[in-house]
């Protein structure tokens, strides 16, 4: 911890205790809102405490014992968040599940977590559980929140949320002290929640987090970003995801701010506008979507609007970011920016629902620099953070005024970082998870006896002490001269250019780095059309000298970027060629989710890769198989040019 915990912090060391604290301190302030039947309904902290109380006691009257597990499945809804608190009141452990999972996927988690109770949103989720109930002997009770379509479900183990609460009220009359005495029994070191990692490799693992993990991490975050009880957030990302458990749960219960739940998943954009969150979180894809939509709509706008938009956005790019970072800006520019705010930025942000947004985070993967700059230039303090479920989110984050598009920031308050010899990132801190549930081996593999956790990601620190994540540690190699070679880092940088669709970079154990590049036929096609450049198809277009020149600009700009980093300087791309066909899942070159299959490509195009390595060769003929849309297989022949660059 950054500083000694005050006495108060020790007293409020569980989520239920914090809830009672807020009910006393700000009992009439809103704690939750949800849009129902077109109206935002709100619940004050007092009401939330009452709701949680009757639910917890209702569960107790069903026989809920300390240490038992309760699954929570559904969209973000106040009642489901209360279910988690009610479980914690009783000393139980909530296990939120991804609501999109099919029944078979839920089976593993429910079984692994020894789930005995489930509180679900609706009929859809109930049906999933009924489908697998026979194979889950431990699952005893299912409780649903929305009665719609549930009339004919008469089984005795299926309960309606409000009926359980009614039972809770009866239970309260018989056991008036039960609620408070149960809450007092739990402490910071007790287990607060299980969060299952999505498990890209192997079965999902249940990450066990304690109240201290959740609450101390939340508290550090609140201090780091000066959050207050006045924040408004929109809870729209899955409840099973660790981020939601911090931004819409942990931090809300520590700071006492209001969490708003959208009407349903399709209405998030409109709900965002109506709520106007002050603190916002989204993965890069959502920001990218917003930017694309704005750009498309601007293309259809009238001439005057387009000119205004272009002028003021250019201004914002130079001035807005400097203002946001607190740097000096001339009075004239400030005035112009104010005008722009009145005419363009303000209305635009209002339309996006971001006009009140003071702080926004993005994480998960690299965000394109132009997307990042777009939002920052509009005055939204968007920052990157680097986190994991095992760390209760926070490992690194960018402090205010030190924001860069290509780093994930400095070590979070209370977190220590170190790099191993092969540049893998390790961390230690208050958020470090308790264990993987029922898997001591996996726990020991990830977390050592001193509490250091291996992330599996490789990175390095830049001159300002910011961490740059470059690739998965196992994919990072070394070039002949010992320079670190991180293929994905270079490929991502190139893919941020609209003209480039896919890149495969090579450099491991080589003298210089090279790349196979696939152009984006739409973007390059448009570009060619504007220049009256006739072409017959993909193969023809990608062989054009003009297109090679176009891509060369992109590669050179990436090389300039790489040259700025002492550690990556040697991995600049020296030679590249434009592939004569798109990488295609039908040919096994990429996965269905568009991830490049490096080994398949190395085999299939080995002669091209050899030619790239051989400085004597300036072009190479190739004949390769290609699967057409209708499933027929044909051969494509091409003579590919190799372009060599002068390195910076």
């Amino acid at each position: 911890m950054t500083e000694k915990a005050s006495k108060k912090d020790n007293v409020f060391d569980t989520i239920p205790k914090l809830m009672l604290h807020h009910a006393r301190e700000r009992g009439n302030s809103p704690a939750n809102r949800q849009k129902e039947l077109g109206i935002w309904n709100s619940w004050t902290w007092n009401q939330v405490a009452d709701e949680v109380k009757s639910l917890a006691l209702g569960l107790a009257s069903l026989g809920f014992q300390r240490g038992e597990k309760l699954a929570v499945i559904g969209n973000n809804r106040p009642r489901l968040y209360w279910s988690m608190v009610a479980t914690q009141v009783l000393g139980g452990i909530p296990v939120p599940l991804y609501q999109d999972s099919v029944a078979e996927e839920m089976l593993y988690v429910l079984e692994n977590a020894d789930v005995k109770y489930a509180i679900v949103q609706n009929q859809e989720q109930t049906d999933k559980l009924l489908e697998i109930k026979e194979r889950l002997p431990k699952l005893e009770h299912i409780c649903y929140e929305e009665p719609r379509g549930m009339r004919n479900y008469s089984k005795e183990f299926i309960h309606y949320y409000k009926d359980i609460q009614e039972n809770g009220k009866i239970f309260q009359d018989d056991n008036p002290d039960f609620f408070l005495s149960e809450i007092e029994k739990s402490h910071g070191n007790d287990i607060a929640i299980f969060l299952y990692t999505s498990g890209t490799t192997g079965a999902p693992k249940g990450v066990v987090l304690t109240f201290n993990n959740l609450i101390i991490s939340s508290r550090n975050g609140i201090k780091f970003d000066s959050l207050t009880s006045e924040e408004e957030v929109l809870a729209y990302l899955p409840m099973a995801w660790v981020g939601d458990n911090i931004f819409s749960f942990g931090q809300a219960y520590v700071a006492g701010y209001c969490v708003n739940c959208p009407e349903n998943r399709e209405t998030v954009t409109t709900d965002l506008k109506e709520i106007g969150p002050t603190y916002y979180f989204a993965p890069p894809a959502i920001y990218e979507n917003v930017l694309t939509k704005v750009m498309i709509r601007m293309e259809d706008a009238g001439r005057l609007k387009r000119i205004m938009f272009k002028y003021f956005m250019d201004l914002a790019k130079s001035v807005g970011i400097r203002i946001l970072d607190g740097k000096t800006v001339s009075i004239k520019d400030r005035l112009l920016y104010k005008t722009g705010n009145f005419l363009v930025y303000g209305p635009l942000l209002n339309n996006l629902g971001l006009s009140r947004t003071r702080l926004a985070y993005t994480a998960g993967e690299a965000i394109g620099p132009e997307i990042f700059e777009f939002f920052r230039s509009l005055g939204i303090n968007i920052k990157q953070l680097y986190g994991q479920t095992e760390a209760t989110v926070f490992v690194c984050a960018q402090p205010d005024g030190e924001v860069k598009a290509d780093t994930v920031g400095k070590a979070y308050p209370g977190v220590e970082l170190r790099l191993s010899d092969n540049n893998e990132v390790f961390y230690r801190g208050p958020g470090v998870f308790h264990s993987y549930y029922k898997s001591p081996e996996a726990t020991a593999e990830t977390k050592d006896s001193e509490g250091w956790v291996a992330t599996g990601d490789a990175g390095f620190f830049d001159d300002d002490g910011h961490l740059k994540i470059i690739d998965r540690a196992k994919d990072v190699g070394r070039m002949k001269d010992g320079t670190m070679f991180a293929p994905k880092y270079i490929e991502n940088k190139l893919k941020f250019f609209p003209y480039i669709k896919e890149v495969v970079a090579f450099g491991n154990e080589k003298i210089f780095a090279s790349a196979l590049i696939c152009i984006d036929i739409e973007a390059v096609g448009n570009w060619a059309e504007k220049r009256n450049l006739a072409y017959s198809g993909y193969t023809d277009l990608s062989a054009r000298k003009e297109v090679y020149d176009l891509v060369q600009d992109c590669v050179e700009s990436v090389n300039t970027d790489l040259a700025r980093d002492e550690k990556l300087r040697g991995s600049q791309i020296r030679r590249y060629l434009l592939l004569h066909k798109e990488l295609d899942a039908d040919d096994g070159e990429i996965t269905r989710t568009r991830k490049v299959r490096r080994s398949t490509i190395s085999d299939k195009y080995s002669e091209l890769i050899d030619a790239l390595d051989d400085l004597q060769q300036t072009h190479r003929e190739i004949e390769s198989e290609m699967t057409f849309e209708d499933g027929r297989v044909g051969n494509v022949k091409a003579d590919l040019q190799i372009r060599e660059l002068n390195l910076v």
Partner: protein
Amino acid sequence: MPAQNNYPEIILSVDQINLSFGGVKALEDINFDIRKKEIFAIIGPNGAGKTSMLNVINGFYHPQHGEIRFKGLHRKQMRPHEAAVQGIARTFQNVALFKGMTTLNNIMSGRNLKMKSNIFWQALYYGPARKEEMENREVVEYIIDFLEIQSIRRTPVGKLPYGLQKRVELGRALAMEPDLLLLDEPMAGMNIEEKQDMCRFILDINEQFGTTIVLIEHDMSVVMDLSERMIVLDYGRKIAEGNPDEIRSNQKVIDAYLGVAHSN
């Protein structure tokens, strides 16, 4: 919707209906009964007279002979707005919405019959009109929630894809809180997923509100799954009546669908 138990079990009976346009006989001696709270289907090949039958029921067409008895009341001639007041709502084969208005306003227009305040108060949006508007809006919001169209609440209907327009049209019919709901090809032109959604809504409406539903539909698998009973029309005549199993094995129906030489 209030349960009304003071009517006989038959909600609508059609007796000896004959309808012709000039020399063309669209419907000939049609008889059938629709029971309260059932889902009843009218099927038949193209041009069999299905839509004409619906139009007769809700008063668009006036049959030359025959009688319709709705909720125990004899009706020989009934105009569409009277049918609406009586509790008959319908959707159309081709969507008939106000394209420039939002989903919300389109469904709200279905509440028109339930609004009592006069145009003066409505224009001022004050006093009784305001209270009434709020009450009706609540009903409409309930329908929006029921049909899961919250995200298009404020979207002009003309901008919506066809499947959603059909859903809005169903919403408008529901807003009338009808006793009898006539659906003219509710699933025409929809993809499988939209069809499944629509089936679920039809079943839910029937179950939750107790609404009697008469539906015309071409997709046989849908009809056989949804409806409890049905009649089959061919060339304006009723050739069969019964539950899905009876219809499936009826030789006349098989002939009508597969095509057999007709002798007049």
